[in-house]
């Protein structure tokens, strides 16, 4: 993986000013890279800043500080027209709630075609519609569905429309913000398979934001663990799951219920509480464990982590 990263996030900060005295530091200095054709999973509890990160990257928010470089262009500050076009066409988002993210008054044809219309990326109406039909077929819907409205579809089908809408611009990176959380188990598997299949065909990169760890492990190549706006640990899926170092990562992993009754009945989850743990995220640095595995800690904390490395089940 010596390729150029497609997305470089450096020291991203996203603060929200609530009033004169109080500012929420939703994301507080995180850095990571995403390479073409890979899936980067972001996990963490609610309020850890994972959705905010995704939304800052695609510039639904104005980042407070830090750099975001996408396809070689800086998209964190004021953008040139060219950079803006690069961002708006080559990065797309799939939202969590398939019921809420589609305009109920538009036909599927126009929902999927909206991006094409805005960027005028076709020469004739036939070409536009042909592109849309192709997308529908790619995501497992049929041509006839184009003239229907969102309410005529089931949840899984709507999420497919959301995916088709993101894919029609032929993007390099898709941010999937809890894209499967609202779906049923059997439908989740269908959508995940679809996303993987598309990745194989188009070499697209995903930023996959979710709290369902078993699904994240399944779909991601690398994983970042967020807590309180800090990236506490990042590494390949195997490193995170087989050799977690940070106590927060450990507690997250211990909380996943396994579908295996004999194991599950005897297992207790670990507790982790930042204020009681004595850790200081502000003072910590990213320590390199292996080429891909990093953990946030001060020097003393790191020693402590390493000595407890094999404590987990």
């Amino acid at each position, binding site marked *: 993986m010596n390729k150029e990263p497609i997305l470089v996030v450096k020291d991203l900060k996203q603060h929200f000013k609530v009033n004169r005295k109080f500012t929420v530091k939703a994301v507080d200095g995180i850095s990571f890279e995403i390479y073409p054709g890979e899936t980067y999973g972001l996990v963490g509890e609610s309020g850890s800043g994972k959705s905010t990160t995704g939304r800052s990257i695609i510039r639904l928010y104005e980042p407070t500080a830090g750099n975001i470089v996408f396809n070689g262009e800086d998209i964190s500050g004021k953008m040139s027209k060219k950079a803006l076009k690069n961002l708006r066409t080559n990065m797309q988002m799939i939202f969590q709630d398939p019921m809420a993210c589609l305009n109920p008054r538009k036909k599927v044809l126009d929902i999927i075609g909206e991006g094409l219309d805005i960027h005028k990326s076709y020469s004739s109406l036939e070409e536009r519609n042909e592109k849309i039909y192709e997308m529908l077929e790619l995501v497992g819907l049929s041509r006839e569905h184009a003239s229907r409205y969102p309410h005529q579809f089931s949840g*899984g089908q709507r999420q497919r429309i959301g995916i088709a809408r993101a894919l029609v611009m032929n993007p390099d990176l898709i941010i999937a913000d809890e894209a499967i959380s609202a779906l*049923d188990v059997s439908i989740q598997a*269908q959508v995940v398979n679809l996303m993987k299949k598309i990745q194989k065909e188009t070499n697209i990169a995903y930023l996959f934001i979710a709290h*369902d760890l078993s699904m994240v492990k*399944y779909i991601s190549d690398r994983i970042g663990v967020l807590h309180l706006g800090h990236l506490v640990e990042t590494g390949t899926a195997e490193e995170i799951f087989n050799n977690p170092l940070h106590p927060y990562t450990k507690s997250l992993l211990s*909380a*996943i219920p396994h*579908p295996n009754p*004999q*194991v599950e009945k005897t297992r207790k989850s670990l507790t982790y509480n930042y204020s009681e743990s004595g850790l200081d995220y502000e003072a910590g640095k990213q320590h390199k464990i292996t080429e891909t595995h990093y953990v946030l800690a001060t020097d003393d904390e790191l020693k402590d982590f390493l000595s407890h490395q094999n404590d987990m089940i």
Partner: protein
Amino acid sequence: MERERILKIRDLRISFKTDAGTVQAIRGVDFDLYQGETIAIVGESGSGKSVTTKAIMGILASNGQIDSGSIEYVWHDENTGERQERDIVKMSKDDIQKIIRGRKIAMVFQDPMTSLNPTMTIGKQIMEPMMYHYGKTKEEAYARAIELLQEVGITDAQKRMKNYPHQLSGGMRQRVVIAIALSCDPYVLICDEPTTALDVTIQAKILELIKELQVKKNISVIYITHDLGVVAKVADYVNVMYAGKIVEKGTIDDIFYDPRHPYTWGLLSSMPDLDTDDDELYTIPGSPPNLAHEVTGDAFAPRNQFALNIDLRVDPPMFDVPGSDSHQVASWLMHEKAPKVDMPESLKKRILKMKKEGLKNE
């Protein structure tokens, strides 16, 4: 110890009148609940798991009606110790409210933010049912409420009594809901997806809390969920529902280590465990049937790659699995004349691995 049956449901059928016609949401459900045990009802959305429990609580939506069947409660009167048996299908609404709901049976809903009243302090909300059902004075109820808050693991109970729901985090709110549910000492607790709205770390804590309270108070719990991981953690018995019917029931080991129904196979395979690295997840093709139309034969047949000819014509009855007194399956594949069909190879491997892990743990 003799298991005491406290809830008996027989041939329950429920339909809803909608603009699109009558929807047969529940098509003949039987199950029993015994003292101190936990059963889980598993299924996709629309399979009727919530409707079943709403019927048990007597809170069906106004366009729903129970067409047939019985829901019988058995309890011992708290003063005289006398054994009582009532069928709530035949009871009046007022009687259900006075005798059953809240008092004998309580429910924890999915989203704690919408099940708590945002305009009342949580203290008041915990005291309310005790004052209503048992006529406790304010002081008695207050003392008991503080005890309850401590029982569900909330520190600073006295201070918390004055808080409003929005001042608490999601996990805290769900703890408050559990405290309210337990305030009248019910003997059945229904948990309708109690952790879906919560984070994994908090989910584990809440499940452990419910389990701990269950043992302490010897109550029975019905879980409704689609998360098989949760089921594995909490349940003694599992009922798998599909399209308004129970298609497979058995002990937790029956369902996880020896599943027989193709739908259960699908459910178990479609969920990635932490070691799955196959290229593709197994999926159940198609989507659940629309129950507004009459279903002939087995409702799962159109999605079932193992479907037999008879599946399309006649609804399968419950077959007993040979050699087990708890395991039952509604599938023609279990009939003695049916061709022998084995579960998919990948699932077999996974079950073998799960059994090994289980042994290691003992």
